[in-house]
C-alpha cells in the first residue's frame, strides 16, 4: 500500500514519494444486537448480572407502575370512588383540587392575575434563555427589575391598582413555591457573585466581612434561618415594625442561598488562569472591567453545574417555608388531603406523588437547560 522508493521496508533509508490520502474510518459493527452482545452478554458472568439486574428493575418498577398507573383510579367524584380494595393512587382527587394546589387560598375569581404573571414570566424566561434572541438586555432588565414589581402589584392588588387586595397570607400552592424559588434564585445570584469577589479581595476589611457573612449563613440550617426570621426577628425589632411573613422568608432564603452561590462562584474564580488577570491588567482594563468582561464570563461558565445544583436545591428547599406558616405546593398538598369528601387511604400518597412529579418536572428542566447552556457556551478550549 505505501509507496516507498527504496523498496523493502527492512531498509533504513526511506523516502516517501507519494502521500497517502485520508481514508474513511473502518466500518463499525453497529446496531442494537451488536451493542447488546458486546455490553450485556459478552461473558457468562455478565449475562448472569444482566438478568439479575433486569429482575431487580422489574421488581422495583412493576410495583410502582402498577400503583401509579395500572391500579390507579382515574375516574370519580369523591373519596368513596377511591376507597377500593387494592387500588392505587386516586387521580380524580388531583384534578378536583388542582386549583388549590396551584393557587392556594387565592380567591378563585382572581385566578386570572397569577395566570397573567405565569404567562409573562414564561415568555420573559423564554426570551432570556433562548440563545439568538435579540435585545437580551431588555429582557434581562424586564425579568429582574420590572417583572417582580408587576408581579407584586398584580398578585397583591390593592392600593392604586384598583384590584381586590389579596394579602400574601392567601398566596399559596405552586404559585408561592415559584415566587419563593424565583426570587431566591434571581436575587441570590448577584449577591453571591459579589460575596465571592469580596472574599478574594485584597482589602482585609472587605474580605473579613464576606468571610463572616458566608460562613455564618452557610453554617446554619435553612429551617433555622426561616424560623429565626419569622419568630425571633420580631422580638429584636422595635415595637410596631411588622414585616410581611413572606418577605421575611424571601430575605432568609435569598441570603442563605447567596452564601452557597458565593462559594460555588469562588471555585470558578480560582480556576481562571493567572495569565487572564495579567493580560487584562496589561491592557489597562480596570478592576470592574477586567472582572466583568474577562474573569466572570469565564468563571461563571465553569460553575454552571454548581449554580444549577444550588438552584435545584433551593427550589426543593422552598418546601421548608411551611414551617413559618406559608402554604407552598407541598403544604397545599398536605392541607388538601384533609378536604371534606376526599377521605380515602390513598389520598395523602396521591398528593405526594403529584407534588414529587411537579418538583421533578421543574428541576429536571433546569438540569437539562444547564447542560444545553454548557454546550452552547463552550468555545471548545480552556485558557
Amino acid at each position, binding site marked *: 500500500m505505501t509507496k516507498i522508493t527504496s523498496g523493502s521496508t527492512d531498509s533504513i533509508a526511506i523516502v516517501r514519494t507519494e502521500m497517502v490520502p485520508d481514508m474513511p474510518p473502518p466500518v463499525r459493527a453497529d446496531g442494537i444486537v451488536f451493542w447488546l452482545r458486546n455490553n450485556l452478554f459478552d461473558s457468562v458472568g455478565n449475562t448472569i448480572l444482566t438478568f439479575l439486574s433486569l429482575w431487580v428493575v422489574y421488581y422495583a418498577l412493576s410495583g410502582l407502575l402498577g400503583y401509579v398507573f395500572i391500579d390507579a383510579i382515574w375516574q370519580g367524584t369523591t373519596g368513596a370512588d377511591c376507597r377500593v380494595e387494592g387500588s392505587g393512587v386516586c387521580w380524580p382527587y388531583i384534578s378536583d383540587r388542582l386549583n388549590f394546589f396551584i393557587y392556594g387560598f387565592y380567591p378563585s375569581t382572581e385566578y386570572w392575575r397569577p395566570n397573567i404573571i405565569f404567562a409573562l414570566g414564561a415568555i420573559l424566561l423564554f426570551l432570556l434563555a433562548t440563545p439568538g434572541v435579540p435585545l437580551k438586555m431588555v429582557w434581562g432588565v424586564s425579568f429582574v427589575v420590572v417583572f417582580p414589581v408587576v408581579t407584586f402589584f398584580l398578585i397583591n392588588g390593592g392600593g392604586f391598582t384598583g384590584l381586590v387586595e389579596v394579602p400574601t397570607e392567601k398566596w399559596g400552592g405552586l404559585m408561592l413555591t415559584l415566587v419563593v424559588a424565583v426570587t431566591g434564585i434571581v436575587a441570590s445570584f448577584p449577591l453571591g457573585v459579589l460575596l465571592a469577589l469580596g472574599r478574594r479581595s485584597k482589602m482585609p476589611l472587605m474580605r473579613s466581612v464576606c468571610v463572616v457573612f458566608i460562613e455564618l449563613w452557610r453554617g446554619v440550617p435553612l429551617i433555622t434561618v426561616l424560623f429565626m426570621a419569622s419568630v425571633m426577628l420580631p422580638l429584636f425589632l422595635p415595637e410596631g415594625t411588622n414585616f410581611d411573613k413572606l418577605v421575611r422568608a424571601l430575605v432568609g432564603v435569598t441570603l442563605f442561598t447567596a452564601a452557597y452561590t458565593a462559594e460555588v462562584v469562588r471555585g470558578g474564580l480560582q480556576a481562571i488562569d493567572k495569565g487572564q488577570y495579567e*493580560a487584562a491588567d496589561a491592557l489597562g482594563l480596570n478592576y470592574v472591567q477586567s472582572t466583568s468582561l474577562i474573569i466572570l464570563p469565564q468563571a461563571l461558565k465553569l460553575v454552571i453545574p454548581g449554580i444549577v445544583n444550588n438552584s435545584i436545591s433551593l427550589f426543593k428547599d422552598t418546601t421548608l417555608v411551611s414551617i413559618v406558616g406559608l402554604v407552598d405546593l407541598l403544604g397545599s398538598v398536605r392541607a388538601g388531603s384533609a378536604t371534606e369528601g376526599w377521605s380515602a387511604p390513598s389520598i395523602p400518597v396521591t398528593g405526594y406523588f403529584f407534588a414529587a412529579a411537579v418538583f421533578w418536572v421543574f428541576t429536571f428542566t433546569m438540569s437539562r437547560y444547564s447542560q444545553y447552556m454548557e454546550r452552547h457556551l463552550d468555545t471548545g478550549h480552556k485558557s
Partner: protein
Amino acid sequence: MAKNAQAKNNSDTSGATKMEVSDTEVAVEITNMAKWFGEFNVLKDINFKVMKGERIVIAGPSGSGKSTLIRCINRLEEHQQGHIVVNGIELTSDLKKIDEVRREVGMVFQHFNLFPHLTILQNLTLAPIWVRKTPKAEAEEIAMHYLERVKIPEQALKYPGQLSGGQQQRVAIARSLCMNPEIMLFDEPTSALDPEMIKEVLDVMVNLAEDGMTMLCVTHEMGFARKVANRVMFMDEGQIIEQNEPEEFFSNPKHERTKLFLSQILH
C-alpha cells in the same frame, strides 16, 4: 496610522534603516531598583535607561529575574525599592498612574493569554473600546488592520482555541498593538512554540522593530537579538551582569557567567 502604513512598505527591506533611536526622549528609566519575593531578593541594584526607539534583548538563565524585571515595567509586579519611570510617569501605588502606564505599554506573554471566550476580533477590540473609548466600528477597523499586519485577517471570527500557537501569539501581539502603545514588552514570546512557528512570530517582531517601536524582549532567540537589538542585557541572580551591543556581546563576552551561558546555548 501613517506610521504603520510606512512600516508595511519597509517590511521587505531588511536592515536598520528605520530603526532610529532618540537621543533625548527617554522611554523607561530605572534607578536603584530592588524587589523581594518574601525573603528572596529577586532583583537588586537595577539601573538602566531605555531611549525611545531602542530595542533591548534581556537574556539570562531561568530564575535570573529577567521576566520579573520587565513585569515591573507595567507593574504586574511591584518593586519595593528605587524608581521606575515609564514615559515620564513614575510607578507608585497610585492606581491612576499605573493605568496610565499600562495604556502606553503593550505586553506579550509566553502563554499568549488570549481571552478564550471571545473571538479574535473581540480580543483585539476589547481594550480599545473600553479603555480608549474608541467607537466599535473604528476599533474593528484598527483590529483588522493589525490582523492583516500579522498576516491572519481570515481568523478574525474564530476563537483563540481554534488557532495554532504561532497564530495565537501573533494575535496577542496584534492585540497589544491595537492600543497603539509607545513601548512593547515581550516575555519569552516564543518559548512555548513549536520550532516551525517561532519564525512567524519573530518575523512580526522584527517588522515591529523596523517600525521604530521601543521594545524590551526577554528571549533566548539569539538570531533575533543579533538582527534587531541595539543592546543585549545579560542577567543572573537578579542583577544585570553584562550589557553590550549584540556584535560585541556575542563575539566577545567579558563576564565568566556570560561566557558560560553563551557556550551553553550557542552550539
